[in-house]
């Protein structure tokens, strides 16, 4: 035996050590400040500099904000009130413009007596989304549903909705909420019907138009099911049948039915849309359409079939390589050359199509990143269990890939929603530029520059921040790896 071995005594543990609480290290505000703000000379300098910058920003903005006026009839009146209260050289925000003209920023030129329709459509949006967004959290869902119903009714009442209309809205919304809470399956079906209801509410006209558009999907689905054993060929056939229906049958049938059972709302044309009604209409439609389209493009780009892959690559690279404004100009100008003369292809619809194509290209790349992040073993396990391509994608691959891609997907949504302000370039009244200019063009509010931008910017911020928070909530909820 060597010396070392002789010196190391044998050891056998008789009792195992019980776990003990960690040592309580010194904590508190002072410690936090010292470690985070004043840990060294450089850190102290940066802290002081940061505070100085914050102070300067605050000092510049605060007088302007604190002198702001909310009750006035014109810019001149505002200035007068400020100079009387704070002296002749004082500056102040004139937020009276918002109080006076908020309805234009929100509704554009939508007829005043019909404001309840976009409000209801917006409220119902949350009823349609809640079963999807908050599928596994009854508490969050009920909060959202309650807020949606309550706020919709309150706003409608404030906008001067009649008692009859309010009761009708309450019955519709509460009925829908009851459906969501008792029959989740049916509620999802109702969510699928929402786009058609929203289109009817926003644009008005005969109910039969949206119903016949919906029937097109039914026709396509029926044709597909009838030939289901021919696989993809039947899908193509169904698409063709639906397209034929929309092109040739939908309008006459809708016309006939409208003659028999006239169910109509006062029509509102697309020129009357503006402000946030326009932005949210385009944004929500674009978001809802670009996600499925992005998924399909991402799958196509990863496909083993060379033709499909090449088409997806070409589409994505082309769309990503072109500014959104180019596509919007194509939508507003070029399409008129190609369409038969006399066709009235709605400008908002054209813009929605272009915005969707644009953001679906980005969406596809974001989702492709998520797909690439999945280990190969997931595909192999799905294959080994006998799942076919579509089932494997739907049940195994996409749920995981989309979860990984949530931050990117929501970024794309947010970017796209803010990009809806670019529709000003094709003559639509976006809230930021066109609506501000319109309000400013009036005699009373000439010279109000910052206030409309701040107001519109704040609303965009609230909506985008809401999306961002939701995505964080969703990420937390879906976290399954190590909890």
């Amino acid at each position: 035996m060597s010396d070392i071995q002789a010196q190391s005594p044998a050891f056998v543990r008789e009792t195992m050590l019980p776990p003990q609480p960690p040592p309580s290290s010194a904590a508190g505000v002072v410690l936090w400040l010292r470690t985070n703000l004043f840990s060294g000379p450089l850190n102290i300098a940066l802290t002081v500099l940061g505070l100085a910058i914050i102070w300067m920003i605050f000092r510049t903005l605060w007088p302007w904000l604190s002198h702001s006026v909310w009750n006035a009839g014109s810019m001149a009146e505002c200035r007068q009130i400020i100079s009387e209260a704070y002296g002749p050289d004082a500056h102040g925000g004139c937020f009276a413009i918002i109080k006076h003209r908020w309805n234009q920023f929100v509704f554009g030129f939508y007829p005043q007596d019909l404001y309840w329709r976009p409000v209801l459509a917006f409220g119902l949006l949350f009823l349609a989304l809640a079963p999807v967004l908050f599928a596994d959290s009854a508490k969050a869902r009920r909060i959202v549903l309650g807020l949606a119903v309550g706020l919709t009714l309150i706003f409608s009442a404030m906008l001067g909705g009649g008692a009859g209309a309010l009761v009708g809205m309450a019955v519709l919304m509460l009925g829908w909420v009851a459906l969501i809470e008792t029959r989740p399956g049916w509620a999802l079906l109702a969510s699928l019907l929402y786009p058609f209801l929203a289109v009817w509410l926003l644009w008005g006209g005969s109910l039969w138009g949206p119903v016949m558009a919906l029937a097109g999907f039914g026709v396509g689905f029926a044709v597909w099911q009838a030939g289901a054993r021919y696989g993809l060929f039947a899908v193509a056939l169904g698409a063709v049948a639906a397209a034929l229906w929309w092109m040739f049958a939908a309008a006459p049938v809708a016309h006939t039915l409208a003659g028999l059972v006239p169910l109509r709302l006062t029509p509102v044309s697309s020129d009357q849309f503006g402000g946030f009604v326009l932005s949210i209409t385009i944004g929500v439609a674009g978001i809802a359409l670009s996600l499925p389209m992005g998924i399909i493009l991402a799958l196509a780009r990863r496909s083993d079939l060379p033709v499909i892959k090449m088409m997806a690559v070409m589409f994505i690279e082309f769309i990503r390589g072109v500014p959104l404004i180019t596509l919007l100009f194509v939508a507003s100008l070029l399409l008129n050359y190609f369409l038969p003369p006399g066709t009235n292809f709605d400008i908002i619809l054209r813009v929605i199509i272009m915005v969707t194509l644009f953001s679906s290209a980005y969406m596809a790349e974001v989702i492709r990143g998520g797909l690439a992040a999945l280990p190969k073993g997931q595909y192999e396990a799905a294959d080994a269990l006998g799942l076919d391509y579509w089932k494997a994608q739907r049940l195994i691959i996409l749920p995981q890939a989309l979860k990984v891609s949530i931050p990117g997907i929501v970024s794309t949504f947010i970017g796209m929603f803010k990009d809806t302000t670019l529709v000003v370039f094709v003559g639509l009244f976006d809230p930021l530029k066109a609506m501000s200019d319109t309000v400013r063009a009036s005699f009373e509010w000439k010279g109000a520059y910052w206030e409309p931008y701040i107001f519109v910017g704040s609303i965009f911020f609230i909506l985008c921040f809401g999306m961002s928070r939701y995505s964080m909530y969703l990420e937390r909820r879906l976290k399954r790896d190590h909890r």
Partner: protein
Amino acid sequence: MTATNPVATPELGETAIEIAKLNKWYGTFHVLRDIDLNVSRGERIVIAGPSGSGKSTLIRCINRLEEHQAGKIVVDGTELTNDLKNIDKVRSEVGMVFQHFNLFPHLTILENCTLAPIWVRKIPRREAEETAMHFLTKVKIPDQAHKYPGQLSGGQQQRVAIARSLCMRPRIMLFDEPTSALDPEMIKEVLDTMIELAEDGMTMLCVTHEMGFAQAVAHRVIFMDQGQIVEQNTPREFFNNPKSERTKLFLSQILGH
């Protein structure tokens, strides 16, 4: 594990897998060369060999996770060709257990086990869940059914993977180094599960370095090197009386310490 084979005399039935003149290349690399192998129903085969010898590739060809370029593979009377229907049919008859488990992390243990029966076999959910609980009990983790894979130990995950395969009621089970990624303490629990499965008469092909397991349950040990079958024999003969020099070298290296 005992060194004696508990089911030493196989009562082998008809052919389950027939592989003839199988050749496969990765690019220009000839990974499988002229493999001929017949597996009878109820037979248990352990495939051993150094890494890169093509043993994993061979069993991955049997459920078409890898495509072969020449030769013939017939599984349960269905030949594997480019016909997707045949591939799906074979895959639903053949269970596979992977080295890295490949459980679906976004689904609970129970959902992992019921997914394929519900969506491929079209079994009602209630019935699929009963079957899943049956097999989860068999692999001794019924109490974990509502957890997620990330909450389980490696050995438990691998047993779930075995249960998930069994829920499809496969006629053949393939194991691709099922214990290679596990801590020593967990290897035994997985091997015990596999031995139980063997005792039920399952047809098994198992790529493994667990030579004790091979001696305990295999009817036949196949030794592969450089994409070809170098030697195959009963476990007793294989371990006690290896014929080829390559086999002797391999055995001396893995049993030597």
